[in-house]
């Protein structure tokens, strides 16, 4: 006789199935009543009255380390205005896709922290999913530096083909990327001043090597290449020519762009890079920097917070701007912009409440609280700390906001950027040359231009 052991746990599971279906249907009814079409439609706002009690807006964000802070701010806001803010945290890399998916089913939340660049947001503008804010919040925008506001502003002739001109995001914070150096290690190598020119930087690299110190590391294995190359794109080509070259209106080869790639080759030739650089990501480089394994790193202003978290005792570092090469005709401009943009859904049913909350979030008091917790610089200029309280590194990063570039142009296809990134990864280990990579970039560019026609 065959053992009938199977039905034992099988029937248990079937029971679980039935229970779950019951649970699922029950919660399904509750949930679909408050379907996410921008928050629960409560009776009060249907009557369009000024009475805000009971109104609820939904706020999605991905800031793991600031969730409690935001919930606290939401509670304060509620006690002041009676408007409830449902703060939902969706962490990890998937936030971007969650926004994309929700946009496709018209279920974006009232308010969200946006994950993506100006180009990505442009696509949501095209589908009329997000709300233009410049017109509605003119006063608020005056609190931010212009360069920051421009990050998600689209004017006539913008490279993303956005026709509904305006500004679509409110900045919660800002950041920029520069070089950070370890003061102690520099002193050890006999370097007294941070480099002001590219040649001086190479000299510093040589001195560090002579002292047995690994000079430099950064996230070459990831997106960092673009921001690191950008200052030199501006230095060698200048803004106008750079934009024209990237749009294919001027040839890439012979434009002088190979000099930008030569930056990386210089560093390789002077043995500046730490081992494993080709696939290194930024967090790994930051670890090495904090442990004193490298003397310099190219990183963003958030690094200050990161270093603090990794080792609060590590304080002896400072910041310098990407140094200009002697043969560059223009000034250096650095990569920077908005760390966390706030975006509002076009389909929200609680426009007034949402805009009120946004105003609240970027008010001076909240910005100061936020800046203490966040790793980024506050966007609200009034909230910036007085000079005396800042560390030198923080001050230099703050000052850097003035040198952030507005637009570095965009290629007709991201494949050109990919070609550059992959190419630079090989340059830094000596397996390719600027000319080779430039050719590969041009191939991708020509292919993209042909397809665009």
């Amino acid at each position, binding site marked *: 006789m065959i053992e009938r052991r199977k039905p034992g746990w099988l029937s248990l599971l079937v029971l679980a199935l039935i229970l779950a279906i019951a649970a699922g249907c029950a919660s399904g009814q509750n949930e679909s009543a408050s379907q996410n079409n921008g928050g629960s439609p409560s009776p009060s706002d249907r009557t369009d009255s000024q009475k805000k009690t009971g109104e609820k807006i939904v706020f999605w964000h991905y800031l793991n380390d600031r969730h409690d802070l935001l919930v606290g701010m939401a509670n304060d806001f509620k006690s002041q205005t009676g408007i409830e803010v449902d703060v939902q945290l969706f962490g990890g890399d998937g936030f971007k896709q969650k926004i*994309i998916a929700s946009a496709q089913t018209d279920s974006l939340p009232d308010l969200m922290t946006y994950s993506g660049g100006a180009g990505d947001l442009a696509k949501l503008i095209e*589908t009329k999913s997000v709300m233009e804010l410049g017109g509605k919040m003119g006063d608020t925008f005056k609190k931010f530096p212009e360069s920051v506001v421009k990050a998600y502003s689209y004017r006539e002739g913008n490279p993303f083909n956005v026709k509904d001109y305006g500004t679509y995001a409110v900045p919660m914070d800002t950041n920029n990327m520069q070089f950070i150096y370890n003061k102690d290690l520099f002193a050890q190598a006999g370097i007294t001043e941070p480099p002001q020119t590219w040649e001086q930087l190479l000299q510093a690299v040589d001195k560090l090597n002579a002292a047995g110190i690994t000079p430099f590391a950064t996230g070459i294995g990831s997106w960092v290449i673009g921001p690191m190359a950008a200052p030199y794109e501006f230095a060698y080509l200048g803004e106008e020519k750079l934009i024209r070259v990237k749009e294919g209106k001027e040839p890439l080869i012979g434009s002088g762009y190979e000099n930008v790639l030569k930056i990386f080759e210089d560093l390789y030739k002077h043995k500046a890079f730490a*081992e494993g650089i*080709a696939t290194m990501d930024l967090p790994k480089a930051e670890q090495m920097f904090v442990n004193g394994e490298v003397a310099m790193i190219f990183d963003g202003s958030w690094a200050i917070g990161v270093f603090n978290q990794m080792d609060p005792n590590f304080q002896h570092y400072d910041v310098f701007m990407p140094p200009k090469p002697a043969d560059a005709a223009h000034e250096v401009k650095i990569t920077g912009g908005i760390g966390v943009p706030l975006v509002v859904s076009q389909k929200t049913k609680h426009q007034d409440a949402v805009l009120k909350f946004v105003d609240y979030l970027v008010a001076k008091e909240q910005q100061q609280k936020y800046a203490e917790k966040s790793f980024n610089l506050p966007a609200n200029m009034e909230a910036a700390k007085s000079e005396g309280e800042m560390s030198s590194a923080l001050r230099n990063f703050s000052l850097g906001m003035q040198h952030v570039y507005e637009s570095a142009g965009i290629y007709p*296809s*991201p494949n050109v950027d990919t070609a550059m990134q992959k190419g630079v*990864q090989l340059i830094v*280990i000596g*397996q390719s040359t600027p000319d080779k990579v430039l050719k590969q970039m041009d191939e991708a560019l020509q292919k993209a231009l042909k397809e665009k026609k």
Partner: protein
Amino acid sequence: MNPISLPNAPIVKRKSRKLACRRYFNLLYVLPALALFGVFSLFPIVKTVQYSFTDANGINPNFHYVGLANYRSALTDSQWWQAVGNGGVFALLSLIFMNSIALLLSVAVNANIRGNQIYQVVFYIPPILSGIVVGYVWKWIYDPKGILNSFLQGIGLGGYTHAWIGSTDTALYAVAVSSMWQGVGGSFILFLAGLQGIPKEWYEAAEIDGANRLQKLRYITVPSLRSVYTMVNILTILGALGIFNQVYAMTMGGPGYTTEVPALRIYREAFTNSDFGMSSAFSIVFGVMLFILSLIQLKLSRNKE
């Protein structure tokens, strides 16, 4: 393959109608599967095929049809074929090393050795971990100042230290090792289940006939595992060619295109380039290749029978 072997039927016509009826009645067995499949799996596939002929960006419901442009671009893309080649390397290495180890382990465990239950659990721990965690762990092992290099230096092979995932000559194999490390457990339990399906009497009868361990292996175990073996191979190839999480965590396809794999390219086209058209075209091309490969494998195994 008609398992319903009826004794000689005098009334052929009635039986054949009954047979035909039964053929449709038996569809009920696959009905639940088809229903679920039709609702949830069919739509994504159809969408993918549709997208492959357009310039869709995955967000805007409006897009234009571009005919075969995406396919033309995909088939002439040298980096894509390099990615496919890399996937092929993973598949080959997995088939040769990973499955052999898994097979040996499953045979060993099946021999009812002391403590084999503990071994079974331990062997299955690597597959349980998410690809990202496995990526982290191996990144730590491969770190230039990490444990692998320290070990090599410790045993006097200091000259072999490397930036394992940072050099073009070792990156691919380094990732392959970590992927195989994780994959052994999966193949292992499939082989084990297959071994369990072999009736014990066959082994007992063979022993009575005086067969030793090796002969039992050769004449009973191996032939009986044939269809399981083919299935594991197909799954291994699919898994190896479709590797994603670990490459994403360790190298993002770098340095350059050294560890670029098809799934990474498809992901990048969809979510970084917002080019769902190209991404879908790559997916279809990839799917067709895999399908043909699997068919060949099935055909080969059936011929052997």
